[in-house]
């Protein structure tokens, strides 16, 4: 079975910039082959998952405010089903890390990540969380969250605009839509 | 037949959870098992067609008393901790009490077993009739005991408030 283009409602596939990671991922999946029944079921499951990503906000600094702006009236990310922000990591599907991560916080973010229930995703928002940003030379700043927990989507900016956060979240949806739940042999 | 099947299911539930309730070493689990016993008893009432008693059993025991029980247990220190086994003297005393209780129950059951037929044949009492019986002043009507109990409860509440205020 051939994999179709990943469909995100209202946005053509071409509108997403080149995403080598996803393209490689598609190739990998195509190489392994997909069972027809499992493939269809997977599509349904992924449709459900990708449209119901409940975020856990890990807001440490400025980016948190832009996240709030994304959630509020003007940008309104409830349109895509992200609306149910959960404060308990157990109930969240993705963690949005907004802001710098420092030494003292590192054990805690790891702990919160471990507390989340599978399937879990991490979206990293802002330069500081991606790489340490302007504070990379500091004695107390962790140079990038991916040194501690795995990251699915990076949203660059300082702080990123709500539009770019939404774009990043849609990239995550695209990724989720390609996942294999039943067809995966390792599971 | 359906009634018998349900009865046996309920009976097994009651028996199992009664034993669990007294043998469990964690007080909060005991309370939960007791709750199951009370619910299953309510089921028995329903089986007999005593709707009113069924609802009262759930409202008063399961919903009221048990909630207060659990609430009170939560307020105490460390409700999840295992209770230490008591001294042998106490265990013997408890054993004697249990045997005594069993004998008492057996006695009641023995003397009433012949009358089961006529008791079951009685239909559910309507709430209206129940109300009249409770608040009536005639023969076999119980206004006075009812009021006495309400005054007793009032006294209890006042006493509880006094104790609480002292702290």
């Amino acid at each position: 079975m051939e994999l179709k283009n990943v469909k995100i409602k209202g946005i053509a596939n071409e509108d997403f910039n080149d995403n080598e990671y996803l393209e490689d991922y598609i190739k990998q999946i195509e190489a392994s082959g997909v069972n027809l029944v499992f493939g269809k079921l997977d599509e349904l499951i992924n449709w459900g998952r990708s449209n119901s990503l409940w975020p856990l906000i890990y807001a440490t600094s400025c980016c948190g405010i832009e996240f709030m702006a994304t959630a509020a009236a003007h940008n309104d990310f409830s349109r895509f089903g992200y609306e149910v922000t959960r404060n308990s990591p157990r109930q969240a599907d993705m963690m949005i890390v907004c802001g710098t991560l420092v030494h003292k916080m590192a054990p805690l973010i790891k702990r919160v990540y471990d507390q989340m229930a599978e399937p879990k995703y991490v979206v990293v928002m802002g330069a500081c969380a991606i790489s340490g940003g302007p504070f990379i030379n500091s004695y107390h700043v962790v140079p990038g969250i991916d040194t501690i927990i795995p990251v699915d989507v990076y949203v660059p900016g300082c702080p990123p605009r709500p539009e770019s956060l939404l774009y990043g979240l849609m990239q995550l949806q695209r990724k989720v839509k390609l996942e294999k739940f039943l067809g995966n042999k390792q599971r | 037949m359906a009634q018998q099947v349900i009865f046996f299911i309920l009976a097994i539930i009651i028996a199992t959870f009664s034993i669990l309730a007294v043998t469990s070493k964690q007080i909060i689990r005991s309370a939960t098992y007791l709750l199951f016993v009370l619910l299953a008893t309510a089921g028995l009432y329903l089986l007999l067609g005593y709707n009113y008693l069924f609802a009262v059993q759930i409202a008063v025991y399961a919903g009221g008393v048990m909630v207060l029980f659990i609430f009170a247990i939560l307020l105490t220190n460390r409700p999840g901790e295992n209770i230490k086994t008591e001294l042998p003297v106490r265990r013997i005393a408890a054993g004697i009490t249990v045997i005594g209780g069993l004998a008492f129950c057996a006695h009641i059951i023995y003397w009433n077993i012949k009358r089961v037929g006529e008791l079951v044949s009685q239909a559910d009492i309507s709430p209206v009739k129940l109300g009249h019986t409770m608040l009536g002043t005639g023969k076999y009507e119980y206004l006075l005991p009812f009021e006495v109990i309400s005054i007793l409860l009032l006294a209890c509440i006042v006493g509880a408030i006094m104790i609480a205020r002292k702290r």
Partner: protein
Amino acid sequence: MILNYSQPLELDGVSKALDTSLSALPDFWRILIECVLVGVVILTTYAVIALILIYAERKITAFFQARYGPNRVGKWGLLQSVADTIKILLKEIIRINNVDRFLFFAAPFFMVCASVMTFGAIAFGKGLLAVDFNIGVLYVTAVSSLGIIGVLLAGWSSNNKYSMIGAMRSGAQFVSYELSAGFALMTIVVLTGTMQFSEMIEKQQYCWNIFNGHISSMIAFVIYIISGHAETNRGPFDLPEAESELTAGYHTEYSGIQFGFYYLAEYLNMFIIAGIATTVFLGGYMPIQVHGWEGFNQVMNYIPSYVWFFSKTGVLIFLSLWVRWSFPRLRIDQLLALEWKYLLPINLVNIVVMVILVLTGLTLTDLFPSLF
């Protein structure tokens, strides 16, 4: 008389047809099949209503907050809660160390069982009533009180301080407000003289209880709505899961479908409160009927009874959401003060007033027997 006219859209014909077709079978099998069918129908309705309510709440909330709400999944986002369900069903259920596993897993079932049992007693339409006890009102108050045990056990067995505080708050709140809710319903029992829902609804054909007992009924209605809100932990009374204080309150440690149960039960409890209020105060599934206006009554009767029920309930749910999204949260002492200092005394006086109204014949049906 008018009710005897044929009403093509009513569903009670279905149940009658089922009855006749099954009558050939022996009793045991007939009861078994009927029980199973009714159970399946109730559970399905339960789930479907929950899905609709979740979607409705999101859309209505968005409307209050100058937003759009879900609009990407399906037309106008209609499939949003379906997507959520698929997701939550497949979410990992975390096994947590150092908790009492038995109680931890049992707690959500208490919550759901209690709300399903109450749900079963609601009269959705003519003939669409699964359990019709002669003590219906008492049954509803009794069974709905079981849900709180789920909350208390969840809070304790999670081994989490936030959960514990949430559970304690919830316990105090529930025990208090159950009194008011019960008394408010009792006021109407005094008025109608019955505890059976079907009978209560039939009696409201021309005059809803809320009008029949005028002052007293109105007060009871308002009190019931307030305490119903409080019982379901919603609106300004959502202290047990006060997000800004206790992260997620008593269900902080629950994930996957266990959390789903709490989520579901919360919405269903809201529906149940609205449904009971409709049944008791607003005439349940009875259409609007006016004594003597035969034509009007006939037209109203053509609208099926379940549509009447759901639209009345819908109005109450909208009201509930409106309140929820307008008010800040109460503090625990304000909450208890509201109940013990205001609602309960008012309620007690109200019952006496209602008794006087009924005994002295001051209810609307007694005053204007020709109109109602």
